């Protein structure tokens, strides 16, 4: 048995590799969007693909998000498997009508006769010093729309595995890429066949006994850091990375909270109407008799995304997470 040395790779590189492997494996996979061809995307995720697969399969489209997604619908109707890039979270909004009125509904509308296997890649979230309209956490809009799968990776390996799964899915998948993790590195072997992760399964990133941090995407590394820092306070925190908001892995999340008895949901998206409310409700419904304290949320403030020089005050950080953990009614145990 030969051992291949694991080399550090970035999340962006893993995503590129996933696109390339998917395009090689399936000639119906087409990549389309703004600047995805010659330039290789503003985050270089499609780097080299136009050269390798040609402009017919990696297409620089006109600058119109509704048109990009709307034409992708037609392409999927004819049997192609489009992978659409929305350049930034907040630039995806013009495509919402196509997404909500057609992408999410076509399978249902046609009783399964016309599924739309479209992957919509959306770089999302803050923490990169972006000016207005470049840092939104828009997942609440997507998860409120039945018919879409909503997936977000937090590790280099998941970026590959989940994107392959998204492209292979016969359902539309909104694939949220945490911008500030694009350059995060991990030991990863790009030469070996990579595992394709099934969509809808959460994973425990760190086991612990005291409380569960339920999180996803860009907040996963923050929660891992918080969990390490918490050991100084005597707390042994478990971190659950959801990976997929729709479908939601109730089983894994509830199992963790039943074990620890306490939970904090952490995300960048605003708290009011954000995913955390739904997650807290689901956890409470399933784990009420195991809970030692109300499920708390650490979320972005309910404000328009702030300018870059102020964003550190907005984003959930280690201290705010630990403060929330501290409010989990520990005194009741004594």
């Amino acid at each position: 048995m030969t051992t291949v040395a694991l080399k550090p790779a970035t999340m962006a590189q893993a995503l590129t590799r996933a696109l390339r492997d998917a395009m090689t494996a399936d000639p119906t996979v087409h990549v389309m969007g703004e600047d995805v061809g010659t330039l290789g995307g503003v985050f270089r995720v499609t780097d080299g693909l136009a050269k390798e697969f040609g402009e017919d399969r990696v297409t620089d489209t006109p600058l119109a998000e509704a048109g990009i997604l709307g034409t992708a619908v037609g392409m999927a109707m004819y049997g192609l498997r489009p992978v659409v890039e929305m350049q930034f979270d907040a630039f995806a909004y013009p495509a919402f009508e196509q997404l909500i009125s057609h992408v999410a509904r076509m399978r249902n509308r046609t009783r399964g006769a016309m599924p739309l296997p479209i992957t919509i890649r959306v770089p999302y979230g803050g923490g990169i010093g972006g000016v207005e309209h470049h840092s939104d956490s828009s997942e609440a809009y997507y998860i409120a729309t039945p018919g879409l799968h909503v997936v977000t990776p937090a590790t280099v390996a998941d970026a590959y595995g989940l994107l392959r799964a998204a492209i292979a899915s016969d359902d539309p998948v909104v694939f949220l890429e945490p911008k500030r993790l694009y350059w995060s590195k991990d030991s990863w072997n790009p030469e070996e066949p990579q595992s394709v992760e099934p969509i809808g399964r959460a994973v425990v990133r760190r086991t612990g006994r005291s409380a569960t941090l339920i999180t996803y995407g860009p907040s996963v590394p923050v929660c891992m850091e918080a969990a390490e820092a918490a050991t100084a306070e005597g707390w042994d925190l478990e971190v659950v990375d959801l990976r997929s908001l729709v479908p939601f892995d109730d089983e894994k999340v509830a199992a963790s909270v039943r074990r620890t008895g306490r939970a904090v949901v952490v995300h960048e998206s605003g708290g009011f109407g954000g995913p955390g409310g739904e997650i807290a409700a689901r956890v409470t419904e399933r784990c009420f008799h195991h809970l030692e304290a109300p499920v708390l949320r650490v979320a972005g403030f309910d404000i328009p995304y702030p300018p870059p020089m102020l964003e550190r005050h907005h984003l959930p950080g280690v201290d705010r997470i630990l403060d929330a953990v501290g409010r989990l009614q520990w005194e009741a145990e004594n």
Partner: protein
Amino acid sequence: MTVMEQRGAYHPTPPPAWQPRTDPAPLLPDERPYRVLGTDSAADADPALLRRLYAELVRGRRYNTQATALTKQGRLAVYPSSTGQEACEVAAALVLEERDWLFPSYRDTLAAVARGLDPVQALTLLRGDWHTGYDPHEHRVAPLCTPLATQLPHAVGLAHAARLKGDDVVALALVGDGGTSEGDFHEALNFAAVWQAPVVFLVQNNGFAISVPLEKQTAAPSLAHKAVGYGMPGRLVDGNDAAAVHQVLTEAVAHARAGGGPTLVEAVTYRIDAHTNADDATRYRVDAEVETWRAHDPIALLERELTERGLIDEAGIQAARDAAEAMAADLRERMNQDPVLDPMDLFAHVYAEPTPQLREQEALLRAELTAEEEGAH
């Protein structure tokens, strides 16, 4: 030196490399809507085609009146009638080959029926027992689209995909005058022209977007003129002249099939009925206007041409009417039967595999239905 001349001195002159990208002249529509019936061009029209169009128009009108009647009997939730627009509906269906695709809006069930779709299936959306009552692949008719103009980019994408696959397929998309104000109209036409996609856009300018007349919708010289801005030809045609619409669309489809790219066709017509059975057209237009258009009725225009040229006799006219009555009787009979509903269908096609959350909700509904059933016994 005047102020304007001074200002002019600051205008940058175009760099030497600049030149117009496309010669706009060949893209411009005719000054008047193109007509065939009642003109010299009518002599060139194929008599068999004219008779076919006539039979379809008569059937189409009967379909419209029958569907409207079904709303009054509570058998349809709503019906947006295409009465007066049958020439456009029928011609759009007839110009396509089997392998081509039609992209209708909610007012275009007749075009779908003329393409061969079962009328009951075409009306499923408007009866309300499901959204799309047919498999779009069977007759290559996309689902009837309700959000205006949003089906146009689908037509472009499908036509583009067909071309990428090397298939000889054209997409024809239907939209109304109101729909041309939507952003998706603009984006679809732009993508189609940039990609040179084999697609034909037919705008049925029926004068009103529910209650809003065209002058509040656009300041363009005509809707067909909008084509020029995208770099595609615009054609203006009398939408009540079935022979003219058929000819213009046939040319546009052939142009697209030959690799010439998209065409925008504006058919000038009139919505004789209200927006739907739930609308009151007397609030926004006068009867005299409607009567003017009744005098330019698509069936009457074609019937006169056929009769005057001896291409149809009383028996031929009666045969068309009898066929239409038979269709209406069959439609009436089948629509008077209650559709079979299974509430569990609600969960069947949201995803390829229901999510765990949907499985829970499915179980909840199943339990409710069981309780209802037990309560009934």
